[in-house]
């Protein structure tokens, strides 16, 4: 039991670190790169291709780390009109079916993506010469984080379906 608790705590720490801290660093990096680029071009008349590349890859890292964070808090946009008309039990059944399908899809997709990531070690970015496998590593990371959050949702929904007790939502990420 103590081992499981420690495992859960460590897992949560790692996920928090990736989704909060790492994503925040990339947001600041994107802002800094775009801002400094203006200064470089307008003040020094010397636009920097390095900064451009940093901004381009920071952007995709923010998206693919931000998407699992939004998933964790159920923030992704939904079309609720039909969903709100059915009973809570049926809503859970819908959620379970789609979450299961989506999780299997992410799992099946992971392996070919990983093969591509391994292959992309040979290709380097134009300016900074960083292997693509590092620049695109956010994508397999996104798949893993999404699988984890989906499984947690499946667990919560199943528990609610059996016990009729709704799981408490997590606190907002900034609280």
């Amino acid at each position, binding site marked *: 039991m103590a081992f499981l608790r420690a495992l859960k705590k460590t897992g949560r720490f790692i996920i928090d670190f990736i*989704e*909060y801290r790492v*994503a*925040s660093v990339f*947001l*600041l990096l*994107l*802002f800094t790169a*775009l*801002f400094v*680029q*203006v200064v470089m071009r*307008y003040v020094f008349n010397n636009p920097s291709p390095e900064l451009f590349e940093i*901004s*381009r*890859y920071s*952007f*995709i890292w*923010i*998206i*693919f*780390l*931000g*998407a*699992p*964070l*939004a*998933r964790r*808090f159920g*923030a*992704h*946009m*939904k*079309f*609720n*009109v*039909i*969903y*709100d008309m059915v009973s809570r039990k049926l*809503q859970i059944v*819908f*959620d379970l079916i*789609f979450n299961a*399908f*989506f999780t299997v*899809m992410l799992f*099946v*997709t992971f392996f*070919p*993506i990983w*093969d*591509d*990531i391994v292959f992309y070690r040979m290709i380097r970015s134009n300016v900074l010469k960083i292997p693509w496998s590092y620049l*695109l590593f*956010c*994508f397999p990371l996104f798949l893993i984080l999404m699988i984890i959050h989906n499984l947690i949702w499946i667990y919560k929904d199943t528990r609610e379906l059996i016990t009729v007790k709704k799981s408490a939502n997590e606190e907002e*990420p*900034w609280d």
Partner: protein
Amino acid sequence: MGLALFFIVFLGAFALGFPIAFAMVMGGFTYFITAGVGLGSFMDVMAIELSGKDVLMAVPMFIFAANLMNDTDVTDIIFGFVKQSMGGVRGGLAYTNIATSIIFAGMSGSEIADVSGIGAIEIKAMMDDGYDGEFASAVTCASATISPIIPPSIPMVIYAMLTGASLGYLFLAGIIPGLLIALLEAGMVYYLSKKRGYPKGKKYPFKVLLKSFRRSFAALLAPIMLLVGIYGGIFTPTEAAAVLVGYVLLISIIVYKKMSFKKFKKIIMKTVYSVGFISFMIAAALIVKYVLAREEIPLLITNFFIDSGMLDSRFLLLLSTNIMFFLLGMFFDVSVIQLVVIPIMLPLVEAVGIDLVHFGVITTVNLMLALDTPPYGQTGYITSALSKTPVSKVFGEMLRYFIPIEILGLILITYFPDIVLWLPRIFGYAG
């Protein structure tokens, strides 16, 4: 077979309340499996192709700027100044609501950011002053429509990415239509204020106004700085978003002294979270775009319209496009419509010779209008919660008074292209 399965899974998951972005990805997965496309294509389309859409980098920055303004009370300061300026006028707070949205529109690119940020302040002030909840909510919804029409604008960023239209000219093209809609809304406020006898605001002496102007000057400078920067050739529209973040950050620390490290951390977190679901939707929609392009759907639709002779009438095409966008907007999210429908419509629009900047403004205005209409009108739900007014009353007020006025604005913008293209042409647009 693959395409049919794609639509069944995508629309099925979508209709039954699964997140829209995930429904798109799941539909794409089914298509990839049945059509024999390698699953590695997910990364090629969603990450590699997305990283090439440089203009989209503006989206996280505009969200960042809006969060900074809302959380450091910059919006509050602007609202305070406009409110004092409108003192003594019947329905003054309703005009304040519209005028503040115009200023906020010059700094934020999102209708939802307007409603949920400054909208909360506006509704509270109006209700405290004796306005009824449905009117306060409806004015807030209507005025927020202006936010993505006047530059900067997130929907215009997405449109530019999809069509290749110049973002700089699109931004310019939005200014007059945005002001026109604001003017029409102000006309409706004038009519309703007189009819219902809404209160006159307190009149402030010139000295107080001057003091308030001085206090809000730094914030009011932001939209001007953006326009001068973009059209003075100092920065691109994408970089403008980062400059705006830098500027708002600077004034919130130095001028207004409203920033702390804790607050900054919270704002960054909020931004990552919002970018997570807003920008991911764009990444997921690229999958839909890929499937539709691979099946040559845009070409099929264009050929259908050419064969049917509908392309002979530009008037009819614009009318049917507007009706289609409006109806879709009642049920679907703005970004979904943009990302799925615009790539299909694009060859059609080009075939008829409709100017892409003009069409961009038409679709933006139309989709913003859709955000105010039931059953999917998100702004109605947000303002209803803020004012604690039944959502049916909010939508009722919108449908009776403000939607017709906005439709009138849309018709003018659609059939008098000079309203849209006059300003870009002054700055050298050849369209």
